[in-house]
């Protein structure tokens, strides 16, 4: 059975305490990943670019509605994900509009975290 662990945190909060700074340090993350790999549980992991770069797609009456920002209605839960390698945002949005659940809920499209962002 595979599990997707989604990490939620307040982006706007700074790193105030030493513990918080420790939690942000790359070494802490690498250590955990090594531990998971050694245990044979790690399939794939990655961070996401900040929500400021998120775009949401909904399909209503056959039309794709594209809006800036993350999906914010809290009464819907994350039901799965696709990780795609696309040329640009328009290609990713096109695929997002093809996902059947876009007609019921919405698809948040977020680029993966990258070092230059």
């Amino acid at each position, binding site marked *: 059975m595979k599990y997707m662990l989604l990490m939620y945190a307040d982006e706007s909060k700074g790193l105030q305490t030493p513990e918080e700074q420790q939690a942000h340090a790359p070494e802490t993350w690498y250590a955990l990943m090594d531990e998971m790999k050694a245990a044979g549980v790690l399939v794939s992991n990655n961070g996401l670019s900040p929500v400021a*770069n*998120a775009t949401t797609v909904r399909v209503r009456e056959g039309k794709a509605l594209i*809006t*800036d920002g993350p999906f914010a209605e809290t009464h819907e839960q994350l039901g799965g994900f696709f990780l795609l390698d*696309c040329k*640009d945002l328009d290609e990713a*949005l096109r695929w997002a509009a093809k996902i059947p659940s876009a007609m019921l809920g919405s698809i948040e499209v977020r680029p993966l975290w990258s*070092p230059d962002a």
Partner: protein
Amino acid sequence: MSATTQIEKTYREEHGRVLAALIGQLGDFELAEDALQDALVNALEHWQMDGVPRNPGAWLLTVAKRRAIDRIRHLAPLERNALPLDPESIPAPQEEPEMDDSIPDERLKLMFTCCHPALALEAQVALTLRTLGGLSTPEVARAFLVSEPTMAQRLARARKKIHDAGIPYRVPPVDLLPERLDALLAVIYLIFNEGYAASSGDILTRQELCGEAIRLGRVLVHLLPQSAEARGLLALMLLHDSRREARLSAKGELVLLEEQDRTRWDSHKIQEGIAILDEAIALRDPGPYQVQAAISALHAEVPAAASTDWRQIAMLYDTLAQMTPSMVVEVNRAVAIAMARDLQEGLKLLLSLEDQAENFYPYHAACADLLRRTNQREAAADAYQRAIELCSNPTERAYLQRCFDTLTDSVK
């Protein structure tokens, strides 16, 4: 014209074209904007001494390219790797910039990028004015009554998203073009309406916004000559703008279409608007902007309000309601029917919209006007009162108050 004024004028005229070409060559929105900003600083120094060059656009592009290469060389290796190209691949700047024709016109790509639906609408508007209009950040901030840091942040965030989320720099492919063009036209019309609203804002800034929207509309018609709706929008804006002088009295009070001094309408703008609308209609691809421009043209063509062809206007609102059904269109359609056929029939139709239009002040103002015309004074006074409560625009509220006062005075 002083050197500084001439530099400013040149800068505004050339900004969009130079920036669009620069983004095309550098492949990076932020870098291109920063480099163009550097080039402008250079231009201020040089042009004040030597005068504005023969081809200011080419001059700016050449210098901006050099500044971009300097900037890339000073970047840390990690940041440099993140750029889509290496500095060696940037076309070498020419020592003696040639004719302006040497700059490829890539403004259409820039327009579509700035108006990409993945950006918030307010960011689309701000970015379009900043990059294509060449308005400074403080100018854009003033136009939308927000503080300069807020506007700077809005623009920075939009640029960052274009880069980080991979918003493409291109004219959308055929299957995406219609909806993306709709979004682009909507942004231009929004800029126009922001300027046209008779609000308490700085009148000069507002006129500039209308002028900017019309200029953008012209550029779009030039770049997309086959788009009937681009022409429709340009015609609509010109026809509305032709009444600018007549819309406010000497005291700054709002004057409605019916009561405007038609000799103060700008006949050049009316003629141009109608000619452009004719070109649009000849393309045989009808759309809501063309219909609205046609309605506006019917008002513009007659010398007195009494000879307005309301029957034709009511028919055009029927068409518009089919194309873009909305409560606002229905309110206007009801008024046109009242004026064209029968006041009672129009009023009945209008009152049937109450549930949807309850919080829309022009609805209550329209009800009040029709009630007044049908001698239902008390009901009319109530409707004016409701409109006044809902209206947040001081100039329009003052107008409604005057209507209310006139009505209640005559009752006494």
